[in-house]
């Protein structure tokens, strides 16, 4: 059996071949290649067990099931929860069907999502904003009202805007797996389901602040940073401190010498590398508390990169005609 589990699976995603372990999902295989091949994901979070399969954003087309059975899969599959098979051929952006489906998914996600980006603190680093910019349409097909909820406080430091929630369940998994006692979950079902704390119980766990980081939209936001600034006016700096509870490796979002907020360090797929504790996140806002390592790399496509300059070791455009800038993240 051991010989079977270590067998490498050969997959082709958007004409790029890659070899991965057995049991890897298509999404993880695509992330191994990186770049534009990676399907976007709103609910899947590699560090949270059981997440994924809810938002359908990562749908891909499997045009060849495996080497043994080369028939295509009958429907588009969620790449975050479909394991690869040897000889599988996957189409992401090369399939117009996938792009069309994703457009529809964005429309579904935006059905109840308010267009209050100018107010929302998440704007500028919001996964849904990126997704709708990349795949969405400008028009909406419905005239129905969006559902509305009153704003609530989850604990002292977290604000819940249920209007903005896309029900990805990431925060529920984060609370379940990072903290010893989950105090919030999804109430009701279907169209009326919402995130709630049991009898308005405050979430007081030491790691509850990570719900803010895992939230792909602005439903859960940092109350200590509420309306303080816009993310693109701040400079993200790698910072660390000695912390008894967590690794203490964070990003300090600075304006001059002031720290406006502290978050976890997110990788290129928008997932935090290490979860941080509430003390680091909410209480240490003094520059003296932290050892500032230096500015973080910001994607050229991000609005946060406006007016931020980075030293480059080599010219980014080697051959402008070949479009090498495309690969530059």
């Amino acid at each position, binding site marked *: 059996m051991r010989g079977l589990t270590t067998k490498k699976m050969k997959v082709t995603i958007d004409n790029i071949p890659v070899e991965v372990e057995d049991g890897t999902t298509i999404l993880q295989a695509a992330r191994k290649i990186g770049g534009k091949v990676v399907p976007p994901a709103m609910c899947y979070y590699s560090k949270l067990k059981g997440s994924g399969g809810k938002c359908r954003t990562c749908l891909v087309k499997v045009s060849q099931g495996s080497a043994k059975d080369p028939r295509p899969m009958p429907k588009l599959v969620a790449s975050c929860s479909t394991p690869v098979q040897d000889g599988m051929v996957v189409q992401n952006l090369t399939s117009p069907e996938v792009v069309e489906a994703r457009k529809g998914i964005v429309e579904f996600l935006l059905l109840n999502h308010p267009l*209050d*980006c*100018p*107010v929302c603190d998440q*704007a500028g680093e919001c996964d849904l904003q990126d997704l709708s910019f990349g795949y969405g349409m400008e028009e*909406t097909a*419905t*005239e129905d*009202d*969006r559902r509305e909820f009153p704003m609530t406080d989850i604990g002292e430091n977290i604000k819940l805007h249920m209007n903005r929630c896309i029900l990805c369940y990431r925060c529920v998994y984060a609370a379940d797996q990072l903290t010893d006692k989950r105090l919030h979950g999804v109430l009701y079902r279907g169209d009326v389901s919402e995130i709630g704390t049991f009898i308005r119980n405050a979430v007081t766990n030491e790691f509850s602040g990570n719900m803010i980081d895992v939230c792909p939209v602005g439903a859960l936001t940092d109350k200590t940073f*509420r*309306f*303080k*600034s*816009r993310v*693109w*006016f701040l400079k993200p700096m790698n910072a660390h401190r000695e912390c008894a509870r967590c690794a203490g490796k964070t990003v300090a979002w600075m304006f001059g010498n002031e720290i406006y907020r502290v978050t976890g360090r997110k990788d290129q797929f928008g997932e935090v590398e290490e979860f941080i504790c509430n003390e680091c996140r909410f209480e240490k806002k003094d520059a003296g508390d932290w050892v500032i390592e230096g500015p973080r790399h910001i994607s050229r496509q991000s*609005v946060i990169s*406006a*007016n931020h300059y980075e030293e480059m070791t080599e010219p980014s455009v080697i051959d402008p005609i070949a479009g090498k800038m495309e690969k530059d993240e």
Partner: protein
Amino acid sequence: MKSLTNRSKVVSNKKMTFWERIYFPAILNGMGITFGHLFRRKTTVQYPEVKREFSDIYRGRHVLKRDDEGRERCTSCGLCAVACPAEAITMVSAERKPGEEHLYREEKYSAVYEIDMLRCIFCGDCEEACPKEAIFLTTELVKADYQRENFIYGKDVLVEPADPAKRIDVSKRQTPEVIEFKKDKRYKHNR
């Protein structure tokens, strides 16, 4: 060396004739040109009495608009500031408190909104970037002053008066597409 343009003239130093040497015909010719200008169309205006007509979309000093109910439209999103090539705009946001709904349209508003008119290049990018139709450039000019500090315009100068008679009309700055979009009933804010 051959000239790059074909406009160069060869200068000759030939000796002037008698008529050329007395300069009198040349002076008369010059006077003729001078007096001829008296009967041409004037390119200047008598400024304080006469003022030049402005274009409808002249880019003068800014105004922060209010909506039909007199509430401030600006929600302090910061898009004008990030679009500003001169970095002339700064703002501090605040949260609207219960009971202030008649003052501010959205749950967030700018408590401080400053434009440094000495930095501003009047490009109109802020107007372009604004998602709330809050900031517009007007046909008014920025007044001269002796102090640099006085050129930093705050909300007291920029926000238009709440009195409907004193509002600043910006309808001519909006394209037909924008006006059409504002009527679209599929969007909640138009209902």
